[in-house]
């Protein structure tokens, strides 16, 4: 087996071990288990409101000990005729002790949705959530300082939204679109 295949197999193996544990503890919070047959990564879809308690369990349970939050990633889906638009916030967790990983996903409506901040569990989330707010407009409840981080303070809109319109000028500086 090649190294790449071994790594993918390890990810699946972790998911098969950890998904049932979370599901048993929080039967109502787990909305969906995505175990793709091929190369895509497995995901566990969590109800937004109970994200914090699930994370608290994942971090403090000694058998899991997810002490490293790798990143918080976001993606915007406009939706179409048959499906509603949504914003997906994905948390990539890692354990330095057990060397296993877990991908948590939260699905939010495009407007007005919010998700509890996990800043108090992992400080990594602080800047990552600020970035998600800045570029994608996701609101994190309970974040200590939810302000823009990469764009200018008075920037308007959230650039990574799929329906974002590039402004014609910013403080009198004309924007040239090629």
């Amino acid at each position: 087996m090649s190294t790449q295949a071994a790594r993918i197999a390890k990810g699946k193996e972790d998911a098969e071990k950890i998904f049932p544990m979370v599901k048993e503890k929080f039967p109502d919070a787990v909305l969906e288990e995505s175990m793709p047959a091929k190369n895509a990564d497995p995901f566990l879809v969590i109800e937004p409101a109970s994200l914090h308690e699930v994370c608290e369990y994942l971090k403090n349970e000694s058998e899991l000990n997810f002490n490293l939050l790798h990143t918080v990633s976001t993606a915007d889906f406009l939706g179409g005729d048959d499906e509603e638009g949504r914003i997906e916030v994905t948390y990539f967790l890692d354990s330095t002790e057990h060397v296993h990983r877990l991908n948590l996903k939260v699905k939010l409506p495009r407007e007005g949705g919010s998700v509890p901040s996990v800043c108090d569990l992992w400080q990594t989330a602080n800047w990552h959530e600020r970035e998600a707010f800045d570029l994608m407009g996701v609101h994190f409840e309970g974040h200590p300082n939810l302000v823009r981080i990469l764009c200018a303070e008075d920037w308007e809109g959230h650039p990574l939204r799929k329906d974002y319109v590039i402004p014609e000028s910013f403080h009198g500086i004309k924007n040239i679109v090629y």
Partner: protein
Amino acid sequence: MNRVGEFHVHKNVRKRFVVMINAGDLRTEEMLLNMGPQHPSTHGVFRVVIRTDGEMILETESHIGYLHRCFEKISENVNYMQVVPYTDRMDYLCAMINNLGYAEAVEKLMELEVPERAKYIRIIACELNRIASHLLAFGVYGLDLGAITPFLHAFRDREKILKIFEKLCGQRLNYTYIRVGGVSFDMTEEILQDIQDFLDYFEPDVLDEFNRLLSYNGIFISRTANVGIIPEEMAINYGLTGPSLRGSGVKRDLRKDEPYCIYDRFDFEVPVGDGEQGTVGDCWSRYIVRVKEMYESAQIIRQAMRDIPGGAFIDKKASNKVKPPKGEVYHKVEGARGELGYHVISDGTDVPYRVKARAPSFCNISILDAMASDANMMLADIVAVIGSFDIVMGEVDR
């Protein structure tokens, strides 16, 4: 009025200055100090607002984003292959590893196995680039703390690596060498010989020279040992990775723990901070991990050059038509600064739906504010601390 001191300007100057201070009038005042965005020791455009009391730092506030070039937004508008040059420009000091992370993420989506020879070439190129990056970190760290000579020595050797890269792919910094499906040019016998010559020259003589020059220099040790200590738990909580995490004594290296490419075929050590000078997790520990890593990288290159097979260096058919099926992956690799992750979402077209890069420097530098408010840090120490993370602002802001 109490006379508290007498100062002589110089022993040859006869005039005597007498300082008269009323002890009751002694007071200190807090001051806001702006450091950056244009400041040589911030390694780019990084701004820190420091609240000081005399020379002691009370609080800092980091501001980033001055170098934001919309990497993620641009990636949604160009095809999979055209994203590769933009990954170069994130961490421009070890662009090879940036290329590798992205290429492997897309290959994972496509279920593509690259040719054996390409895997070995990738390892050699990445580890060579890691040495170049650590050489710069070593030299510039000395420069930050007032030692100019080590910088010149480090750049002398880094130049040799850049010359090899120039021969390999025509570029010195932004290589775009590792692509989806393989690498862009073959590593010829001549280049392999150049690398062999470089390694024979570099290790162990040059590394010894570096240790004599800077690592065990008394002034350097007193500037860095016991300064900016990060305990293990705090380091993990803030998402520190790479040499910054290993400096705190955590033995975590993706090349060993979750091998990618073909790293599981090589024999190498993972150096961690052991408190040889000062405490585990101080600036000196983070620094020495990098110096030791250069030696380990050289070992990996030697093994890869010994075993490199013949054959194709790129899967031409696959690289001409990069159109992964629907799906999403997260792939992380061990960069020179820490763990670099790519979250790639594909909607089945030849343009990525979303590319998110997890930059190691972005997480590493986020700990600075917490360190400044916790520890008894002095103004001169903040330069030592920022330098010890070896940040690249191109990667922080993307």
